[in-house]
């Protein structure tokens, strides 16, 4: 089936089998390998991407469902050569160890601070509760997302 999907602002057309999972379309067809595959059973959340701005687990969505819609992957966070505040904050607060869950954590974090720029620790932990970090580095992930919120707010004030 012929589909057209806007990924990180660029339109991509492809002929895909209906059973192709969105994560495989992103990784294999588009060669955007920042989106990872972990459990493949909707549990770990490392395959999270934004579908029309909403976090979804791309191992549990078919690529054909994204036809005519818009996807943001971790590769799309950077804007005009500048890192997104969430990326800067993860670097500042050392919000990653092995890095496997990081793209998903950053996308979920970016969506959270867009809705709620000043989240409490509880709110951050609630928001990332569908994403597992196998290094169990949650403390710094939470700090990173909170810092990103502050940075984004400061950035939009200036």
């Amino acid at each position: 089936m012929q589909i057209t999907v806007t990924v990180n602002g660029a339109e991509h057309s492809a002929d895909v089998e209906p059973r192709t999972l969105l994560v495989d379309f992103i990784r294999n067809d588009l060669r955007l390998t920042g989106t990872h595959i972990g459990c493949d059973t909707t549990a770990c959340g490392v395959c999270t991407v934004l579908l029309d701005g909403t976090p979804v687990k791309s191992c549990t969505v078919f690529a054909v469902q994204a036809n005519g819609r818009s996807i943001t992957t971790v590769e799309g966070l950077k804007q005009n050569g500048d890192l997104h505040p969430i990326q800067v904050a993860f670097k500042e607060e050392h919000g990653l160890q092995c890095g496997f869950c990081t793209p998903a954590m950053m996308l979920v974090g970016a969506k959270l601070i867009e809705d709620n720029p000043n989240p409490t620790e509880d709110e951050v932990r609630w928001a990332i509760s569908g994403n597992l970090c196998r290094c169990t580095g949650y403390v710094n992930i939470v700090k990173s997302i909170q810092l990103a919120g502050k940075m984004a707010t400061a950035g939009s004030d200036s």
Partner: protein
Amino acid sequence: MLAVITRARPAMEVRMYPRAFDYLAPETKEEVLDVLAERGDEVKILAGGQSLIPMMKLRLASPGTLVDINRVPDLDSISIGNGHLTVQALVRHNDIVNSELVTTENAAMASAAPWISDPIVRNLGTLAGSVAHHDPEGDWASVMLACGAQVVAESRDGGERVIPITEFLTDMFTTSLQPTEMITEVRVPRYTSRTTHEHAPPRGGGNYQKLERKVGDYATVGVATHLELGDDGGISKAGIALTSVYSHNLKVTEAEHLLVGSHASDELFAEAAEIAKIACTPASDVRGSAEYKKDMVRVFTERGLAASLALAQR
């Protein structure tokens, strides 16, 4: 001597993949009903897909045709009218979490919604899909049983059919939905006091207690409760239903009958909870022993009834 090089198989070969299927994404409800009328048995409806797609990947489900209803308009609202709170087929779990209408109209639903799976799955999964799936470990079916919901199904040749939830849920992973029908909405009765006076105090309340090992896991034990009080202060309506402790979501009718017509008390609630404990038959597994789960049903039923009563008396 030549070294034998064994390469790891490419990842794709060891991935879980569904069987091939025809994919249709109609833009009107009439087209969906046409496909169902013509292809019936081999069709599965794709709404949120958060149970269906994993089932397809495990090849527990292999539909020949998948009808994606996400492009059908006017199927994603929560509304009140005709004595019901109505949740349409494409309403996501997170829409319910964020709904002020649900917060003021149905405490059991408002209490359960944040505990459905995890926040990302809640962005796609739907209440109607969860009820249609009828996994005995699913939370929504218990809440719908406790609240006395109705499922509304439509087919091209049969028109609309309103099915009481007790007749809809027939057995585990099985419902009375016909192959030619799609669920269009689920209706939950409003608090009786609100059906005569729009802004009356609810005189009712509800709750969902869920024990889970981690976010996103199935319930080890789940208990849905719903209570309403009559003009004399006695219990006029009562609903209790259990998750994960029977071969299907279990409505504890005997305990409900005990409650209706009586005045609430700790002793009464303890007695109802004991009935619920005896009614369920959980299996011992990695989530706990049968004995432990049965006792948690008792504890949760008491707690749920107390929380529901507190809301009914506000």
